[in-house]
């Protein structure tokens, strides 16, 4: 990663933290201004909405330009693949120029060129490889995965995109799962790797974007551990589907089924416990999501109660647990216990995010009443109307 970019990322983190402190009323405007002056931002950044728009329209421009190129070289065969490879290299150079000379960061355009550069380099390289050497399918898939690990990893490291690093990690673990004893390797290697990358994610020697990349690796690694031992993943052959070996999926070996059943429950619980012990929200969230997945798995394998009852009891339990936890944390000295608090810490006190509102409107909106054309004289219309069927 470029030194100037790493330094800019660090300054940006400080400025963002100061913004949160001021919003929470922990510092005044004068102090915030002093912090901003001490940590100036030399990058050209856009707000979230502008960034999404610019990213989208840059993709429109580049993809249609590539469409024109595709029409021009449609009959060129191998040369077309080479041309697209060169385009990928060109876009990578353009990303470098934007991040370097033009000092762009969170500007939309550089993310779009980086995204297409990676896509073109991987796609065109595979095209050239396949046309040139006509490898067996197995070899071609392995080559694609190796290429994805190298290109995405290098791009993620160089430009500081945690998403690229996360995707490179997925490709690396899929490659690992394709090896002999793939499931075993997928359980052991990520488990050994996670403590190191989590420790690295705390290191102040790394740039903030590299720290986030380490967190992305940890998330992917733990998801693969869970997939490797999950009972339904064995029975449905989820890992085998990912690796392209779905025909080999044969379910969990019978003598080990109790072990995998216990592991399915234990992995999220241990992740949650690790998160609570180390006070890492990332692990806590991952543990909670895993726990939900394990409860759903339990309901699939063991019909303890009808689904409606399980949902009502489960939902009620979740609400009750949240209320109890809040009361427990609030009753501690300084409204905190063991380093955890239910109070907002330097965030907007009760800001309802647009995402939450959109989700509420989308998931709880009732079914509309039927609208008839003028002159239509139908006699029906009651069934299913207005949530009467229970889908309110």
């Amino acid at each position, binding site marked *: 990663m470029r030194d100037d970019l790493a330094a800019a990322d660090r300054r940006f983190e400080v400025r963002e*933290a100061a913004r949160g*402190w001021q919003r929470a009323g*922990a*510092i005044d405007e004068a*102090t915030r201004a002093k912090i901003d002056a001490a940590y100036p931002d030399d990058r050209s950044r856009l*707000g979230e*909405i*502008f960034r999404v*728009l610019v990213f989208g329209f*840059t993709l*429109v*421009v580049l993809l*249609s330009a590539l469409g024109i190129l595709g*029409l021009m070289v449609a009959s060129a065969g191998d040369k077309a693949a080479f041309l697209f490879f060169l385009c990928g290299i060109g876009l990578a150079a353009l990303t470098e120029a934007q991040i370097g000379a033009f000092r762009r960061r969170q500007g939309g355009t550089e993310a779009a060129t980086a995204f297409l550069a990676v896509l073109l380099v991987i796609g065109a390289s595979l095209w050239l490889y396949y046309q040139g050497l006509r490898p067996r399918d197995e070899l071609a898939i392995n080559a694609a995965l190796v290429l994805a690990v190298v290109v995405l990893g290098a791009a993620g490291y160089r430009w500081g995109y945690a998403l690229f690093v996360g995707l490179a990690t997925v490709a690396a673990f899929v490659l690992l799962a394709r090896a002999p004893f793939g499931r075993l390797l997928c359980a052991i290697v990520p488990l050994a790797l996670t403590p190191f990358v989590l420790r690295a994610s705390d290191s102040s020697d790394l740039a903030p974007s590299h720290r986030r990349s380490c967190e992305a690796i940890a998330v992917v690694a733990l998801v693969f551990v869970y997939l490797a031992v999950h009972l339904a993943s064995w029975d449905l052959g989820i890992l085998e589907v990912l690796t392209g070996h779905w025909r080999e999926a044969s379910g969990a070996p019978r003598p080990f089924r109790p072990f995998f059943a216990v592991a399915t429950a234990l992995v999220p619980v241990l992740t949650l416990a690790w998160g609570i012990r*180390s*006070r890492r929200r990332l692990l806590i969230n991952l543990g*909670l999501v895993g726990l939900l997945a394990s409860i759903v798995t339990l309901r699939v394998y063991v019909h303890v109660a009808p*689904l*409606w009852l399980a*949902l*009502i009891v489960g*939902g*009620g*339990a*979740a*609400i009750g647990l*949240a209320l109890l*936890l*809040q009361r427990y944390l609030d009753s501690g000295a300084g409204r905190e216990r063991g*380093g*955890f*608090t*239910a109070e907002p810490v*330097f*965030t907007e*006190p009760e800001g*309802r995010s647009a995402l*939450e509102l959109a989700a509420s*409107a*989308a*998931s*709880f*909106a*009732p*079914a*509309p*009443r039927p*609208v*008839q*054309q*003028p002159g*239509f004289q139908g006699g029906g219309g*009651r069934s299913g*109307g*207005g*949530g*009467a*069927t*229970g889908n*309110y």
Partner: protein
Amino acid sequence: MLTRKQTALFGRVARGGLVSVRLELRALLYGGVLAVMGGVGLLVQQNLDRIGPVAIASVLWLGALGTLVWALRHAPPFSWGESTSSHLAFDYILLLGVLLTGAALAYTEGQFTPLGPAWSHHLLVISLFAGVLAVRGDSRMVASISLTTFAAWCGVAASPFGRAFWDFGSAEGPLRRNAIVTGLLFVGLGYALIRNGKKAHFEPLAAHLGWLLVLAAILSGIGARRGAGAAFQLGLLVVGAGLAFFSFRAGRFGLFGMGLVAAYIGLSALVVSGIRDEFLGFSWFTCTGVAVLATLLLAHKNIKARS
């Protein structure tokens, strides 16, 4: 720059010595409401014969009453301005109460038909009920339920997960008209809230949902045959451009983005529908894309200079 006390506190938070789990607790509450309502839906559908309508209706009404009583006991003092409850779960329990009331009313109407042929008016009743509670409890989440239920009463589904509102069936014209009128009503409601200084912070919700309905209703017609399609394309261009222009001037970038994308789709549909050559089609998107990008970057520069 910072006092010793501030440095100690900020350092503790930065090192992970103090962690807020507020977001996780909120997610737990939201997931809980979602699961309970999913279970209630299945209960109503699957257990009518076994449990009986009176028992199911009683359980739903009791559940609704219990949650609403809890919510009202924890409600913040009433104010026409912002008055957020200090209790983390308030919004979610109020939401659950409103949803259970809706389910209970819909179920009662479905089984005992007190409203007769006017059965669909229970949606209007619930919309108004949710609106009143949203204002009383200062809950934007419940206000969103009030608006989407009102839209449902008008025959328009505001949820992408349900029957999409562009799935018109045989009632294309009336439903599209309903969607546009409902959308404009929401925009007007938002304007009235700001103008009267009453719950003005609900305005963005009403405005965004309103414009989304208007633009989506027009967008749904751009594939129509002959002149009708062109009229909708032109309509989308004009309405989108207008929305983008005025929103930009007002510094409302969410609406600006919505309007810009709608206007671009309208203009591109108008032009590309007349182009038969692929090369010209790609060239159109390349050139206009560059123009839009340049406009966006200049607009951002202008905003930065203004601020």
